[in-house]
Each structure stands twice: as structure tokens, then as C-alpha cells.
């Protein structure tokens, strides 16, 4: 009896298998697996020599390291991941730019109000908190909607996942935290600008 082996792909469940002596095998191909210490590619020449000593006419093909075998087996998954990652990065950048734009516009629209508040005693910290708070409230609203949509839609992606559930809590928490940080950064710079408002100039701004 031997342990289960994934002989077709990483995500496929092992199937029942029976090992037979090679001489009973009617197939013409043989795959030799060599476990080596150090760099296994250094043994290729020696392996070829040993096989040639048994049968000089034996063709030897597809010499690869186990890392290459595993890598090729996940090549499709890796491509999908890179593509999704690229789209996700673009979406994140667009989100940041969009949120920055909305908050910047809001600050310009609220210049008069900010001037009034500063004339009534608001310090720079109060103005910063007000603007960043507005940005975070917007972001939390979007996060809530996005989380709900993600919970519904990630099941569609479950066939593309390996080793992680479609509702992995750590992934959801990590992405939510990242988006909150992005929202904070996008809100901070317009907020800093708002604190530089001259109250007397802002009060003349209608």
C-alpha cells in the first residue's frame, strides 16, 4: 500500500489506483523519477548514459525537474490569477482616483462651509477629521455593498480556486482592510488641502 498520489493535477482528487509491474504494462512510455541531492539537472547526463548503456537506441524526451512539472501543471491557473490580479489592481487604482476626485470636489464645494467652521473655532485637526470622516463613510458604504456582492459572486469563482474557500474570512478581512487604507489615503490629501483654507477668503467664496 502506498499514499495517495495526485497524478493528473493538483486540484483533482486522487483516484483509486493499482500499481502493476512494468513488464505487464502494455504502454510504450516510461517515466523515470530521480530523487537527487543538490541540482538534479547535473545528473541528466549520467542518467542518459545509464539508460544508453541498457538500450543505446532508447529515445529520451521531456527531461524536467519536479518544480517545472508542478509549475506547468498550474500554468493555466497562474495565468488566470495574473489576469485577475491585473484587473483588480486597475480597479483599485480607479477606486482610489475616483474617491480622491469625489472628496476633492466635495472640499471645493464646501470651502465656504469650512471657512465658517474655522471662523467659529474649528482647528485644522477638526477640519481634517471632518473631511477624512466623509471619505471613510463613503468608503464604508461601498465596502458594505462590495462585501455583500462578493459573498454572492465568489461562489461562481470556486472552480478557479485551489486550497482556499470562496468565502475565506482572512481574504475578505485583508481586502477590506486594504480598501479602507486606500480610502484613507485618497481622502487625506484633499483633507490636508482643506486645512489650508484661509477663513476670510473662504467666507467670500460662494
Amino acid at each position, binding site marked *: 500500500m502506498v499514499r495517495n498520489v495526485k497524478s493528473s493535477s493538483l486540484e483533482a482528487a486522487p483516484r483509486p489506483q493499482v500499481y502493476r509491474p512494468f513488464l505487464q504494462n502494455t504502454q510504450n512510455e516510461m517515466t523515470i523519477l530521480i530523487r537527487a541531492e543538490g541540482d538534479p539537472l547535473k545528473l541528466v547526463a549520467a542518467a542518459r548514459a545509464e539508460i544508453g548503456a541498457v538500450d543505446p537506441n532508447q529515445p529520451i524526451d521531456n527531461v524536467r525537474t519536479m518544480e517545472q512539472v508542478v509549475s506547468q501543471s498550474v500554468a493555466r491557473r497562474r495565468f488566470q490569477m495574473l489576469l485577475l490580479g491585473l484587473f483588480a489592481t486597475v480597479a483599485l487604482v480607479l477606486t482610489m482616483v475616483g474617491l480622491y476626485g469625489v472628496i476633492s470636489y466635495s472640499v471645493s464645494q464646501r470651502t*465656504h*462651509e469650512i471657512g*465658517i*467652521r*474655522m*471662523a*467659529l*473655532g*474649528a*482647528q*485644522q485637526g*477638526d477640519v481634517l477629521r471632518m473631511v477624512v470622516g466623509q471619505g471613510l463613510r463613503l468608503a464604508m458604504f461601498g465596502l458594505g455593498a462590495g462585501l455583500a456582492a462578493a459573498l454572492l459572486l465568489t461562489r461562481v469563482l470556486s472552480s478557479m480556486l485551489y486550497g482556499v474557500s470562496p468565502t475565506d474570512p482572512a481574504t475578505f478581512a485583508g481586502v477590506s482592510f486594504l480598501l479602507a487604507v486606500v480610502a484613507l489615503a485618497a481622502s487625506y490629501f484633499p483633507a490636508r488641502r482643506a486645512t489650508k483654507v*484661509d*477663513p*476670510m477668503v473662504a*467666507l467670500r467664496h460662494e
Partner: protein
Amino acid sequence: MMIKLRNLEKAYATGYGKTYVLRRIDLDIEEGEFVTIMGPSGAGKSTLLSILGMLDGAWTGEFYFLEQVVHKMNNKQRVELNKRYIGFVFQSYHLLDNLTVYENLDIPLSYRDIKSSERSGIVCDILDRFQMVGKKDLYPSQLSGGQQQLVAVARAVIANPKLLLADEPTGNLHSAQGKEIMEWFKKLNDAGTTIVQVTHSEVNAAYGNRIVRLADGWLVKE
């Protein structure tokens, strides 16, 4: 002495030179006075008022407020002085249109270290004092000009300032509304609040006990 100005000047850089808005202003204001600043347009009246209100920090000279050396303070320290001692009434009221009368009155208190439970009591008290209880849930757009200015005056005095600054407080009001506002100023001054107002109106100036005139940024000697 509440306010002492010595050689106060304000200028803007223009091209290769400077344009002066205020020149060598020496001014003393005692506690309890009701001072009127008058002068033609462009004389520097509103600029002087915004400097007195700690809203403008770009000036030179000496400014002492309640014995404190304002000209050596940073912006944060000046804002603290403003919060503790000064209320400001603007010509255009400058109420926040998206907040009710109650919420507008609460804003100055929210920037001072006052608990929200205490703030509620203070706002209710000022609404009663200015006879505006029935209007507390209205928005500024639902009030007349005179009522809006009354809310602005209430907002300016809600934190019990020692000094009330008013920049053309009746400029956008008709005479009856303006009279009501000036009567309130007289009452506040009688109760001990120092008032400095900028006005073009000789009628309003008569409510005060001293007139200071500015022309082209200079104090006109009487």
C-alpha cells in the same frame, strides 16, 4: 485694557512692491466699550476686524489681547484665543444652510471642550433668551434675513465671549430688522460684552460710545 494695537500693518505683495491695507494702526479698546469703526470702502475696516478676531494672521506690528502677546503666537494659539474670548457676526450671516437653527447654534460649542449633554442645555438657554424656541428645527432658508442675523448673533454669543465683533451686521437688513439687531447689541454691551462693529450707518454708530475712522488704511486722528 482688552485690546492694544501698536504700529499694526497689513500689506499684500504686488509686483515689485507692496500694497498696504492697514498702516501704522495704534488703537486701544477698553473692556466694556462699544466701538464703531467707520470709513469709506477699501479703508481697511473689515481687515482690521478680521485681525482683531484672530482670523487673519498675516500682519506685522504689536497686538495685545487681554495682556496676551498675540504677535508672538502661532495660528493654533490664536484660534484658541478666538474660541475662548471672541464671537463674530458677519454681514452675510454665514449660517450653514444644511443645518437647523439648533444645529447652527451648536457648532461653536462642538469646537470647545463642552460635553454634549451640557451643550444641549446651553443651546436651549440661548434659544429662549433670543425668543427663538419655536424656530429651532427650521433651516436658514425658512427664516427672514432679520431672523437669520438674529441666529448669527445668538451663535456669536453662545459661548459667552468677552468680545463681540460685528462686520456690517445690518448691511443686508431693512431698518426695522437692523434696529432689532442693534438693540440686542446694546443689551449685550450693557451686560458687559465689549463690542467692536464696522458700519457705514451713522444710526448704528450712535449705539456705540466711540467712533474710530479709517481712511486708506490709516487711522484718522479726531
